[in-house]
C-alpha cells in the first residue's frame, strides 16, 4: 500500500532546518534504502510544506518516520497528516 505524508512547516523553516538537516536526511535515506520512502520533496513556490510517499504494509512505518523526524521533534513542522493512497497508474 502507498501512503502520503503531508507536512506544513513554519515560516522560517529554511533557516531553522540547517542544524537538523543531516539528521533528517539520514532518516530519509535509511527509509529509502529499506524501500519504504519512495518519493520526498518540499513544495515549490512557496516552500511551505512537503509531501512524502511511502510504500508499506500499514501506516506504522509512516508514523514511526514522523516520530523520529527532527523537523517534527523541534517544532519546524506545524502540523502533519497521513493519507492512504490508492495508486491506479504508474511504473514505480
Amino acid at each position, binding site marked *: 500500500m502507498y501512503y502520503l505524508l503531508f507536512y506544513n512547516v513554519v515560516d522560517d523553516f529554511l533557516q531553522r532546518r540547517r542544524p537538523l*538537516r*543531516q539528521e533528517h*536526511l*539520514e532518516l*530519509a*535515506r535509511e527509509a*529509502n*534504502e529499506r524501500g519504504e520512502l519512495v*518519493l*520526498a*520533496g*518540499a513544495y*515549490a513556490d512557496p*516552500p511551505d510544506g512537503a509531501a512524502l510517499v511511502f510504500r508499506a504494509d500499514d501506516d506504522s512505518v509512516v508514523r514511526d518516520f514522523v516520530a523520529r523526524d527532527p523537523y517534527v521533534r523541534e517544532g519546524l513542522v506545524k502540523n502533519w497528516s497521513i493519507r492512504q493512497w490508492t495508486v491506479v497508474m504508474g511504473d514505480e
Partner: protein
Amino acid sequence: MSLSDAGQGSAPWEPAPRLVMIADDNEAMRETLADIMAGEGYLVVEAEDGQAALDVLASSPVDVLILDLAMPRMDGIEVLEKIRPAPPVVVVYSAFDYYTPGDARSRVGSKVFRTLRKPVAPAQLLSAVADAIEELDGHDR
C-alpha cells in the same frame, strides 16, 4: 556558487576530502544533493547553471561533477562539450528534460561516467560518486 564544508573533520592521517561539484539550477535539488554529499564527508561546491560550473572548473580541482542536463544559460550537454580535461561526470536528468542521457552519451559519451534519473536515491548517488573516485584513483596510480 557556494562552498559547503565537509560533514566531518579529517584526522591528519586521512586523505584530503574530495571536492564534488553539483551543477543544477533547481535550488532545492542542488542543496539536497549537496547536503547528502557533505554528510558523507565530501567538500561540495555548488553551481546554479552551466556557465557557473565552467567558471568553477576553470579554477578548482573538482574530483567529480554531478551535472544536471537541463539548465538555463548553458545546459549540461554544452558543459560536457566544453570541459577539458573533464572530471568524471555523473549526469542527473529528469524524464521531462529535452535532452536524454542517450543524447549526452552520443555527443560526449567518454565524459559521462554514469547517468541517474531524478528523483535520485541517495545510495545510488553516493555509490556513483564513490565509484568515480575509485576509477579516478586507479588512473592516477
